[in-house]
């Protein structure tokens, strides 16, 4: 694998605890991006593309469309056979990619290509624990870092089990982005914030990706054609209060079930530093002719990005 992103960083295993400056959370492209956004008084748009769906080439077109449309951070999905945190759209993208022979080697080649074409955009791998455990966390982390990727999200990795994974990621300077949920109690939220670097991923709904739960309770506020649960807004406020260390604040990104500019405005209004959109892109990619994917994705991204600008 080419060392497309080799030049960037070099941090210690305790990097997330030792610093006290504003970049103590991360010295990666992700941190620089959030600093840049803050300076522009703008919020971030994080977009997700399942690599290899519907093909390697088209998924790269989708990423190009995201970048052209103004996405600030790109999540690159690598499929797992049993994506239990994902709803139907990403399940379908996962099985589609696996059906076309997705392998981790191919994923790394795709990521390297994207990195070579885009020096500065932060790239984050999203997959499931078994994929990295199977490679060995240390070997996986160095391969991921060599491909020019900046951070990792594993939706089934609980902080309680994360020590060997986090140590491996730190050794390679990769950010570890953990998820928190509206029902995460205060003490645990602090632990999650302390071990997360890059940003904290707050799940907006009780449910899987792309799905909004009607049953799980919580008041829904219907303003602006969106339906954001009251508990989600509370969760963002709580996360923002918690994710503060030594005067520096870890950015809080909000994801799951966000699919429209109206949703984006709601979460941005509630104080989210970034919004994360995934399943909506899987749908656009699936429903567009391959030649239109880049254009359609970029148009959609531009609309979402605009909603992150005229915030508070």
């Amino acid at each position, binding site marked *: 694998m080419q060392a497309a992103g080799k030049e960037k960083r070099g941090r210690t295993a305790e990097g997330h605890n030792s610093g006290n400056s504003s970049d103590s959370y991360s010295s990666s492209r992700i941190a620089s991006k959030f600093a840049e956004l803050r300076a522009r008084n703008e919020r971030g748009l994080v977009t997700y593309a399942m690599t290899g769906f519907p093909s390697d080439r088209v998924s790269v077109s989708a990423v190009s469309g995201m970048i052209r449309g103004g996405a600030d951070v790109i999540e690159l999905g690598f499929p*797992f*056979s*049993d*994506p*239990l*945190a994902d*709803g139907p759209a990403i*399940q379908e993208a996962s*099985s589609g990619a*696996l059906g076309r022979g997705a*392998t*981790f080697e191919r994923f790394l080649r795709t990521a390297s290509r994207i990195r070579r074409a885009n020096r500065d955009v932060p790239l984050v791998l999203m997959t*499931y*624990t*078994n*994929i990295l*455990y*199977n*490679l060995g966390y240390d070997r996986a982390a160095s391969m991921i870092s060599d491909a020019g990727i900046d951070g990792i999200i594993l*939706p*089934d*990795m*609980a902080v*309680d*089990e994360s020590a060997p994974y986090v140590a491996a990621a730190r050794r390679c300077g990769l950010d570890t982005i*953990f*998820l*928190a*949920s*509206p*029902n*995460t*109690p205060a003490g*645990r939220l602090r632990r*999650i914030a302390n071990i997360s670097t890059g940003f904290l991923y707050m*799940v907006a709904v*009780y*449910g*899987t990706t792309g*799905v909004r*739960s009607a*049953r*799980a*309770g919580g008041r829904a506020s219907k303003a602006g054609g969106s339906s954001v649960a009251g508990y989600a807004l509370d969760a963002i406020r709580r996360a923002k209060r918690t994710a503060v260390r030594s005067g520096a604040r870890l950015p809080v990104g909000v994801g799951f079930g966000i699919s429209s500019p109206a949703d984006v405005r709601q979460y941005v209004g509630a104080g989210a530093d970034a919004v994360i959109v995934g399943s909506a892109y899987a749908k656009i990619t699936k429903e567009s002719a391959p030649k239109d994917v880049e254009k359609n994705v970029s148009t959609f991204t531009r609309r979402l990005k605009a909603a992150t600008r005229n915030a508070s």
Partner: protein
Amino acid sequence: MSRKYPKNGRFGEFGGRYIPETLVPPVEELEESYLRFRDDPSFKAELDSYLRNYAGRPTPLYHAKNLSGELGGAQIYLKREDLLHGGAHKINNTLGQALLAKRMGKRRVIAETGAGQHGVATAMACAALGMRSEVYMGSTDMARQRPNVLRMGMLGAVMRPVDSGSRTLKDAINEAIRDWIANVGDTYYLLGSAVGPHPYPVMVRDFQRVIGDEIRRQVARQAGGGGTADVVIACVGGGSNAIGTFYPLAGTGTRLVGIEAAGRGLGTGMHAATLSAGRRGVLHGMMTYLLQDAEGQITETHSVSAGLDYPGVGPEHAYYKESGAVSYRSATDSEAVDAFMRLTRTEGIIPALESSHAIAEAVRIAPQMKRSERIVVTLSGRGDKDVEEVQRYLAGGR
């Protein structure tokens, strides 16, 4: 073997809790409630009463004299879990967990099922306790286990067909977990095997250990002289009847043997023998042995018995394998069907295809043992559900 509650839910390096963050609070609530109620005298008395008067415990230990005589070696005893209400050991666990769910104030119970036995046992326990149940089942399994699907419907369970992945047990678990994530407030996930995130493997084992506890007492009484069994055999899919059998017997000097489904043969790749042919990995909230490809993708399994058709295994079995406390072997579809027919013919007992894998091991080893030696086989369920499948198998040549 230690009676301790495993620290951090770990059996050696296996087990743990690899779950989406939304499930952490409900899983912690479950653990807390379980630890509170398992030693609560009124909970124990209520469960004991249901096990006795509703499920039919204790189950007999039957000396299979005809089978033993035909094989000409060790004496074979059958632990008759097939005689329980519902026709399988599953009711031991569903009564325990449904009572727990009720005490926790949960109004909605969800479950996954493979062969349908756990789904039926869940529907029965919920009907008896006046609770609502919804059962996730792969559409492939629904087609091959039609009578159980009908039974669940009549018992009042809402069926939730699963069309994702291989449309079998593994996918039914994925879908049940997704449901739980979306409904953490009022929903209790009643897992059917000794798998999943901590505390499920421990809790299911504790509800199933009644099998091994009874075997110990019954062998001592029936065999006379405070005797013990020389070999105890159980089949292993997720491994709930096996862990319930082995846990109280581990360290007593009895040789313990778990039998996995070798399907069409370990060499063919068409099997479900996780411990025999798998590698460590993380699935369904636990670290354990898994059938997976070089990339860490979970592979599809095959077994003539839907109840053993699972690419993972309970983490305590993974630990027993590595510590050597239990030996794990396997039996093919054809050996299981032979054992099914042999027990049916010699003893007039129709065993579940799952349990037939354990019988197959007894058939294999009994002739090499002395007539004074004793084998106990946990007959985890009855085979009425399997008669069509067996006919199809025999008609197809294999």
